[in-house]
């Protein structure tokens, strides 16, 4: 029989027992919805985790330090002398080289220092951290009260909630108010040659002339309060309580904790950085970037292994969800088999007539197959719709809960196109497999016996 005729006859047969076939199709739809809901939840959570972690700067960044810093951690200083001699300096040239590496989007120094701030005349000790402008889209700022910095050079600050609570009981009233930042500015002592290079914050002057420290103040306007503690790389502005634009932080030339050590160790005439953060386009590009930088002679650190483990975890998680989701589909498969076996009993005489009129076993088999496939197709499409609806409801419910917990809303559910297509194909495949036995049973019917059946 031609495909068109086969399809027409199958649809006609399905319409004849519309209630039973609709219920069977609904069973498939529930099975597919369960599968889609489970997998979409897995995919959604994976995307949420990836997005959050990616935005956090922990997984898409490489911390670069002069190799000597790394070596010093591992060995006694006496044995590190050889490495010191060979290690290239982490200076502006190196920063420019890193920026030109493939898939690197940003390279910035770490600016972070403990200091004192004054608010309404009272002093408070805290840690100031410079935040790169690229953090604007950072997921860590999703739940910010107020706003992110208006520009990379604005004299503005974002206060972490713990510090905000120290400053005042009504944290939200802080927005728009001023805070005075008191810090120690490094000023280079002119050398014999007359140079008086002034290093930027985050860099070390290694001219050998040393530096003096001068107390300074800077008035900053509080523009936002953040609940969570944002992080942007290791040793970055994580644990910072007062966040200010990185450019502003650099321009302060504030003394940092490792300045004394670096001043004593100074060997080069060039300005160097204690560390640089190299940010990649995505976590997947970290490995080649890290390898390249290592080969350039620098020490690096990233959470590459952690991302691998995360992927492994979500793969297993998705697999388990798929297995649980498939259980409902397995039940639906039994429903299809039952429906088709019942159909054979009911249509026994009709099968006999078809065979008497010239239908081959193959035609009868294909007819039942197409009927099973059509139920699978409609069940699959309907199931994806149900699954999507469940996802929407789940996201809605989750966000209500998150809102009550004063947490930012999140998309915990994602139905990618491959899942939509895959679920429909899977539903059709499972239905065809379910139709295998009934179809072959129908095809094997003896036409004489079938025609005798009342």
């Amino acid at each position, binding site marked *: *029989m031609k495909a068109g005729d086969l399809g027409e006859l199958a649809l006609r047969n399905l319409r004849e027992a519309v209630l039973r076939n609709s219920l069977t199709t609904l069973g498939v739809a529930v099975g597919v919805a369960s599968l889609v809901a489970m997998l979409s939840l897995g995919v959604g959570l994976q995307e949420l985790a990836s997005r959050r972690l990616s935005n956090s700067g922990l997984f898409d960044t490489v911390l670069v330090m002069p190799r000597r810093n790394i070596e010093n951690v591992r060995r006694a200083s006496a044995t590190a002398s050889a490495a010191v001699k060979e290690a290239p300096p982490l200076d502006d040239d190196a920063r420019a080289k890193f920026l030109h590496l493939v898939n690197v989007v940003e390279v910035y120094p770490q600016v972070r220092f403990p200091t004192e701030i004054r608010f309404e005349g009272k002093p408070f000790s805290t840690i100031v951290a410079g935040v790169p402008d690229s953090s604007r889209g950072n997921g860590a700022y999703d739940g910010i009260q107020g706003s992110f910095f208006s520009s990379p050079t604005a004299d503005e600050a974002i206060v972490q909630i713990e510090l905000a609570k120290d400053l005042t009981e009504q944290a939200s009233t802080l927005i728009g108010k001023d805070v005075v930042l008191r810090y120690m500015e490094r000023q280079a002592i002119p050398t014999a040659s007359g140079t008086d290079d002034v290093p930027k914050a985050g860099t070390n002057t290694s001219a050998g002339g040393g530096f003096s420290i001068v107390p300074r103040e800077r008035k900053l306007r509080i523009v936002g309060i953040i609940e969570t503690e944002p992080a942007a790389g290791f040793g970055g502005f994580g644990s910072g309580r007062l966040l200010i634009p990185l450019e502003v932080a650099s321009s302060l030339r504030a003394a940092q904790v490792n300045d004394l050590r670096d001043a004593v160790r100074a060997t080069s005439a060039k300005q160097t950085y204690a560390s640089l953060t190299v940010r990649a386009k995505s976590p997947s590009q970290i490995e080649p970037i890290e390898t390249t930088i290592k080969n350039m002679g620098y020490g690096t650190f990233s959470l590459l292994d952690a991302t691998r483990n995360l992927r492994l975890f979500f793969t297993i998680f998705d697999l388990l969800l798929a297995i649980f989701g498939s259980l409902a589909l397995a039940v639906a498969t039994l429903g299809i088999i039952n429906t088709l076996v019942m159909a054979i009993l009911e249509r026994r005489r009709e099968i006999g*007539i078809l*065979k008497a*009129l*010239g*239908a*081959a076993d*193959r035609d009868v088999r294909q007819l039942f197959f197409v009927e099973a496939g059509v139920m699978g197709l409609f069940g699959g499409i309907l199931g994806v719709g149900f699954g999507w609806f469940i996802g929407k409801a789940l996201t809605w419910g989750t966000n209500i809960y998150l809102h009550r917990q004063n947490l930012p809303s999140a998309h915990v559910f994602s139905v990618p196109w491959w899942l939509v297509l895959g679920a429909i194909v899977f539903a059709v495949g499972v239905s065809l497999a379910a139709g295998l036995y009934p179809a072959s049973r129908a095809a094997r019917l003896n036409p*004489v016996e079938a*025609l005798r059946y009342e």
Partner: protein
Amino acid sequence: MTTGNGVAVRADQVSRHYEMGSAVIRAVDEITLEIRTGEFVALLGSSGSGKSTLLNLMAGLDRPTGGAIFANGRNLSELSSLELARYRSRTVGMVFQSFNLLPRMTLEENVELPLRLAEVDRAERAPRVKEALERVRLDKRTGHRPSEMSGGEQQRAALARALVNRPTLLFADEPTGNLDSATGETIMLLLKEIQQKLGMTIVMVTHERPLAERFADRIVALADGKLLSDGVKS
């Protein structure tokens, strides 16, 4: 479409035995029979005589357990399942006592069904359905379902369905069994007309001797699965 020398179907020592536990039912037992092209043969016998079983064997609906049936120049026993289906589709037309129309299909759809199974092009189907329905004078009832038609009309519809693929052999199993005598006669007249106009070979199973004697060219009588008599009418 003959087996040679004007023979349409030939049964050669054909048997159809069924095993029921330890007992063997000899529904058809070593029957030899030749049906010539264009003949109207009536298989006459009482219930259980084996006439319907023999008809099913000749129509390719069943396979013999012994002997052979030759039709269309080929031994039906040696045909594969697919080849046998093609034989039923292209060479044979079947009419049953209980009409066997599909109740959910209209008359037109019922008659079109064998054309679908024979993979006839869609464009060719409508004129062939029309032609078949005109032949049985049901061309005005195309949209009706079997439940909306009388018994005689249903049997005429079944006849149109049997003719639509233009077969050379028409097998009718008690075609008047479910009809009153007047309607039955109409059907028999129609069968006779088809035989004469189309030159078709017709094999009809019946237990009504008067009907067989009036319309058939030849009466083959069976009893207990054996050939009792084979007589050409004068």
